């Protein structure tokens, strides 16, 4: 590293540190009590997104960790690289982390993100970015969770429309789950992740 310090920034860049597997024993290192709470319990309009991670044989993956990253309900990020910044949603973390249980299930509590503006026009439909780490994978897998009740926005989403096969596209759209929605409680959603096989989820090259 001392070389780059003495010669200034080099566009060729430094060797980035390689990814390695999270392994089977990450639980004590990565599990947080508040991990699954993108918003605190009791937040108005909060719902759960839950699902199961499956391997190529259709068996649940009990040693995966799922992370989510999303905009707030205004479609903004409390981050210096969002030029608009965030103005509301004080208790909104934007980030969720859930290790799968012995049945391969994960769950996060969140609120629906707003749509995102796209440079050059258009909008991205409300979605969560998702990272999947597990024993057996040497690199992070990246996918997205879209909402089934955002049909209009999904139809013009630049990422969904970049996927030609409707069956593949459908792997990115959650299902409605849990108890029936009421006026004050939105529905929960179910989003299973198939690492491999007939129903393999779409994963992204980022």
């Amino acid at each position, binding site marked *: 590293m001392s070389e780059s310090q003495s010669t200034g920034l080099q566009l060729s860049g430094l*060797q980035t540190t*390689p990814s*390695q597997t999270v392994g089977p024993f990450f639980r004590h290192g990565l599990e947080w009590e508040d991990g699954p709470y993108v918003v605190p319990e009791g937040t108005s309009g909060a719902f759960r997104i839950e699902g199961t991670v499956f391997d*190529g044989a259709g068996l649940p993956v009990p040693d995966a960790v799922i992370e989510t990253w999303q905009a707030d309900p205004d479609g903004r990020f409390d981050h*210096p690289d969002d030029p608009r910044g965030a103005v509301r949603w004080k208790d909104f973390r934007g980030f969720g982390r859930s290790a799968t249980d012995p049945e391969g299930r994960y769950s996060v509590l969140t609120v629906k993100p707003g749509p995102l503006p796209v440079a050059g026009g258009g909008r991205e439909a409300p979605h969560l970015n998702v990272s999947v780490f597990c024993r057996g*994978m*040497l690199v992070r897998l990246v996918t997205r969770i879209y909402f089934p009740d955002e049909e209009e926005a999904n139809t013009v989403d630049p990422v969904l429309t970049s*996927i030609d096969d409707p069956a593949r596209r459908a792997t990115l759209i959650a299902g409605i789950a849990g108890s029936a929605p009421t006026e004050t409680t939105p529905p929960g959603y179910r989003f299973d992740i198939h*690492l491999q096989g007939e129903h393999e989820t779409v994963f992204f090259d*980022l």
Partner: protein
Amino acid sequence: MPTYRPHTYRPDTPSHPPVSWPEYKSNVGRAPHKPFVLLPQRLGEITGPLLGEGRVGANDNDLTLGHDGEPQGQRIIVSGRVLDGDGRPVAGTLLEVWQANAGGRYRHDADRHPAPLDPNFTGVGRTITDSDGRYSFTTIQPGAYPWRNHDNAWRPAHIHFSLFGTAFTQRLITQMYFEGDPLFAQDPIFNSVRDPKAREAMVAKFDLATTVPEWALGFQWDIVLRGKNPTPLEEEDDDE
């Protein structure tokens, strides 16, 4: 109407293991088979969780503390910097580490290695980088441990590191190894990184300068996250 086109991050795929790496047996049934879809980096990809303050306690970067006594094993201090691919320090970013104890045993129900647990060692740490991107952990040299990947398979000693950087795109989970470990040659996880220079970037070096006399051995390890592409808008401005 503002345009949202801040910087993006350069691809660094050749630094990383392939998606499919069957020498690591549990990869076979889990690695996706279909080609990945290109995800252009937009707002949600160039931002990310900025976690740190509030997640880390005063002694969380010293894994030898917090128990009734001292853990067994060789005390070590692992320190270095977190940089982006252009050598800029990544300040204020959360690092999470976890590791086996000196005997190669993890504090985890599923770890069946018949080595003793150490009542004075949990093997979990957290810290935040300072304004120069520096971090430091005090811990115990982890032991190698056997696994069932292939005949007489042993993992080289390693510490797991998890980093966020400042963007979803920079998220990294990796393992830090120790210089000169004779187990490298037979380890399919270490060798899943095909580029020798990239493999070298996972190996901490013994460092006398950070070795504390009569106390602990020093190891240096810098972590490099993805660097940024030049900003298109800035280039346009330059042309004007």
